[in-house]
């Protein structure tokens, strides 16, 4: 059983049967000392509920009251735990469940989802495996959202929010979505593909109560149409509009009119087709903005334009979050100085044009920064400045800037920058760091400085690179990280690594949920250490590492506790995969080949043949029927 976090708001009634009195009763049964009549979270173990038979007492309450209590529980896991307490709680919980998160769209079917949660309002779905982000999964692999929208529409679910990640979305799906749910409010698409601006036009035109349209890093075919014009004049409820990933031109006047009639607009992220003067006008009519994504302006602005921009920015006193700048003359960044000390989130990871002094000067004034996404052109020196200026920093992502160039990038970051950050930013809990070199000593220092990491992702650009000072593997460095960071939930390792690092991970990373491995390990033992040790492991993805059938098959039941396993360019063979599929019928074991010529025949040949890409996941609905020919489901 889990813990429940009750968000118990202030109450103005005091009857003993009031749900919040009940909560108070639970609280004072000795588990904690928070008073429930504040808006605070109190921690109540369900075990306590059972032990004190309170749940039975609670059952004397009408269902509505119990629902009311449950409603205050937001976390999916806690909701899942509640539903396991008893049959009656299961029934109550499922009927009042509003938000459902499905980490793998093939683990369950839309029909079963709707059957269990008929009152669903918000659905989050994830499709393709994570490595699809890096071109390791063929485009046609799957992850289609259409069947979901179709089923939800037919069942007349009152869907209000749909959040998709790595799924294939078509214009037809968007059209169907826009017409089927009268109260639809929020569409968030991350790393999706398959649709065009025509689909966006349907959403704009038909969703009368649309509040949020957030498109993050999608591949959208831009028909350069007039989708922005499709928002009716009556649409005034927008709170968030993000179309930064659109590549085509934008109808500026339509955009300006839309923003002008959206007084609740808090988040606006435009694409690069929105030039400086348009941005100025937009900000002038939306000074309430909290989150701004800037377009592009290649040329240095003239004095007058700059002055206007500056004036508009000064009025945006609520601005906390800034991103975009994909093609921006560095001078334009200086226009944001007036508000930079308010910023809590700064994403300059697409701002390839801004480096050196401009960048560092700006960041050093962002004293309240909590999240920073930056390119490695900032350099170690720049990171040292960040470390001394941004004491509130919690999340840092440093992306590689030189992906296509062969030049030796002297400005890139090394272990020096990472150590500096760890020393200066003690609140850091989440890091993604691409660098060209690393040492064990640095990692050990980082672990000591920041034991609070929950996400630690280090990518040394050159695979198999050892500690550049000692030439040893980086086992000890990563070992130190997992040992010190007791709350670590996500880890990506890189560099030269032997089985030993996995021994450490298995031993110490007790909270680890997601592990990404590339070009690491020596033998099957490595993978076994992880599978045996990491009890909370949900997602394991491995590429180019020498793990084979012995590791894959050692503990088949483990996969039932996990969402998925990905192995590419490893040593598992077709025979091993077939055996696994036989032993675990509740798994979908997929073999993926991209080369259409070889496709199936190659797989059927030889069981000793190594499998190029293996993706397996638990499912309650068996084999999917939408797999392309390059995918074989065993």
């Amino acid at each position: 059983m889990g813990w429940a976090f009750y968000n118990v708001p202030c109450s103005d009634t005091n009857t003993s049967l009031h749900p919040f009195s009940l909560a108070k009763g639970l609280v004072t049964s000795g588990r904690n000392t928070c008073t429930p009549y504040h808006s605070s979270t109190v921690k109540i173990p369900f075990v306590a509920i059972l032990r004190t038979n309170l749940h039975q007492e609670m059952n004397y309450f009408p269902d509505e009251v119990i629902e009311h209590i449950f409603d205050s529980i937001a976390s999916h896991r806690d909701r899942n735990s509640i539903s396991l307490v008893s049959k009656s709680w299961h029934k109550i919980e499922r009927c009042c469940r509003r938000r459902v998160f499905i980490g793998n769209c093939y683990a369950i079917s839309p029909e079963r989802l709707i059957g269990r949660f008929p009152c669903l309002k918000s659905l989050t779905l994830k499709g393709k495996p994570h490595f699809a982000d890096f071109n390791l999964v063929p485009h046609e692999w799957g992850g289609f959202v259409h069947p979901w929208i179709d089923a939800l529409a037919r069942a007349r679910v009152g869907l209000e929010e749909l959040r998709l990640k790595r799924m294939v979305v078509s214009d037809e799906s968007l059209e169907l979505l826009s017409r089927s749910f009268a109260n639809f409010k929020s569409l968030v698409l991350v790393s999706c593909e398959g649709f065009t601006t025509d689909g966006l036009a349907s959403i704009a035109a038909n969703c009368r109560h649309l509040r949020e349209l957030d498109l993050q890093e999608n591949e959208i075919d831009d028909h350069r149409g007039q989708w922005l014009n499709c928002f009716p004049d009556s649409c005034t409820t927008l709170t968030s509009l993000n179309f930064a990933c659109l590549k085509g031109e934008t109808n500026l006047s339509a955009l300006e009119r839309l923003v002008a009639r959206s007084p609740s607009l808090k988040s606006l992220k435009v694409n690069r087709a929105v030039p400086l003067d348009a941005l100025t006008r937009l900000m002038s009519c939306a000074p309430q903005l909290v989150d701004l994504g800037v377009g592009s302006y290649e040329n240095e602005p003239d004095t007058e334009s700059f002055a206007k921009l500056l004036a508009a920015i000064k009025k945006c006193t609520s601005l906390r979050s800034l991103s975009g700048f994909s093609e921006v003359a560095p001078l334009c960044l200086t226009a944001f100085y007036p508000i930079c000390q308010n910023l809590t989130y700064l994403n300059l990871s697409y701002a390839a044009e801004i480096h050196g002094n401009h960048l560092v000067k700006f960041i050093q004034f962002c004293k309240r920064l909590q999240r920073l996404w930056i390119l490695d052109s900032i350099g170690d020196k720049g990171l040292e400045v960040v470390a001394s200026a941004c004491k509130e920093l919690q999340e840092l992502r440093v992306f590689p800037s030189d992906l296509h160039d062969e030049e030796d990038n002297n400005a890139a970051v090394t272990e020096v920058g990472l150590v500096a950050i760890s020393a200066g930013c003690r609140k850091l809990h989440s890091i993604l760091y691409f660098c060209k070199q690393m040492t064990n000593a640095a990692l050990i220092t980082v672990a000591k400085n920041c034991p609070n990491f929950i996400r630690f992702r280090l990518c040394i650009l050159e695979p198999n690179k050892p500690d550049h000072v000692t030439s040893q593997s980086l086992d000890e460095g990563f070992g130190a990280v997992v040992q010190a960071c007791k709350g670590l939930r996500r880890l990506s390792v890189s560099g030269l690594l032997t089985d030993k690092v996995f021994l450490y991970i298995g031993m110490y990373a007790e909270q680890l949920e997601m592990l990404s491995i590339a070009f690491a390990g020596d033998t099957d033992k490595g993978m076994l250490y992880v599978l045996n040790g990491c009890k909370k492991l949900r997602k394991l993805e491995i590429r180019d590492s020498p793990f084979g059938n012995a590791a894959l098959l050692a503990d088949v039941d483990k996969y039932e506790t996990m969402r998925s396993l990905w192995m590419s360019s490893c040593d598992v063979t077709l025979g091993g995969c077939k055996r696994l599929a036989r032993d675990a019928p509740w798994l979908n074991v997929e073999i993926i080949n991209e080369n259409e010529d070889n496709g199936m025949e190659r797989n059927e040949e030889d069981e000793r043949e190594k499998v190029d890409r293996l993706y397996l996941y638990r499912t309650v609905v068996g084999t999917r029927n939408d797999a392309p020919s390059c995918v074989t489901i065993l």
Partner: protein
Amino acid sequence: KSCVALQLKKPKESQMSPEEELQSNVSVASSSPTSNGISRNASGGLKEHNYLGLSDCSSVGSSTLSGLVEDDKATISLKATELTLGLPGSRSPARDTDLNLLSPAKLDEKPFFPLLPSKDEICSSSQKNIASGNKRGFSDTMDQFSEAKSSVYTEKNWMFPEAAATQSVIKKEVTQNIPKGQSSTTNNSSSPPAAKAQIVGWPPVRSYRKNTLATTCKNSDEVDGRPGSGALFVKVSMDGAPYLRKVDLRSYTNYGELSSALEKMFTTFTLGQCGSNGAAGKDMLSETKLKDLLNGKDYVLTYEDKDGDWMLVGDVPWEMFIDVCKKLKIMKGCDAIGLAAAPRAMEKSKMRA
């Protein structure tokens, strides 16, 4: 820890760590994951030779260069005219004499690189025949380059098999390095910069981000007068390869660069099966792969143009090529019979056997 297949084929191969290589002046580049995984044993291996008037070819970085030199001797058969990637005329005449100097003994070593045919000695005459193959257009293009340059590129092409198919980088700087013959730029303390067309999915950066940044960079190049309009990714498939790669045609300026990049990419892929620091866990390559490598099939580089026809790469000037090329494919020579030059190339290699 080495890939067994490697050992079988290349007993003499220098399989050193980058540091060792630097010190030993052996020219084998070492930056690829596969090669590291294959973990070299320190071995004497190849000695430097100075074909191009280079005084010193010692580091990993210019190892590509020195590698060429070294490997060239051992891999004389690389003699490209089997020219797997179909770039005729890339052999400068100056190389012929050098090739003859190579002792047959070294040629016993079989190439890893599947693109390379089995080791045959190439005599200058046959080489010239091939060089005078049908791709007049291409040789026109190649003529632009200095001999040194073209030699560098071609040699680099053939270096891989000997060099345990590393991901050594072909840097533009290498061409400048030639005259100096220094192992300067690529200091081994930092990793050699990544090759442009590398392992699929590495570094792990979302394609959206890659494409966006690429476009940004290209756009800023417009000042140079280049018709930059963003990256131009085309798929590259190879017979026998389980998955495709993509390359950005705009990141190359000539056929030589493309050819080298593709070789690196597919060599790495082939040896990628050996994985990382494979110790005991590392098995031999599957039998089929081993056979392939041993037989040394001929491969040619072809492309699909706007009309959907498959053409042999190299016939048209580079700028035109990137304009019309929709897809690339590395085909077996025998499959490419309908296209120009390929049969000839095969004939020539048979003759030499």
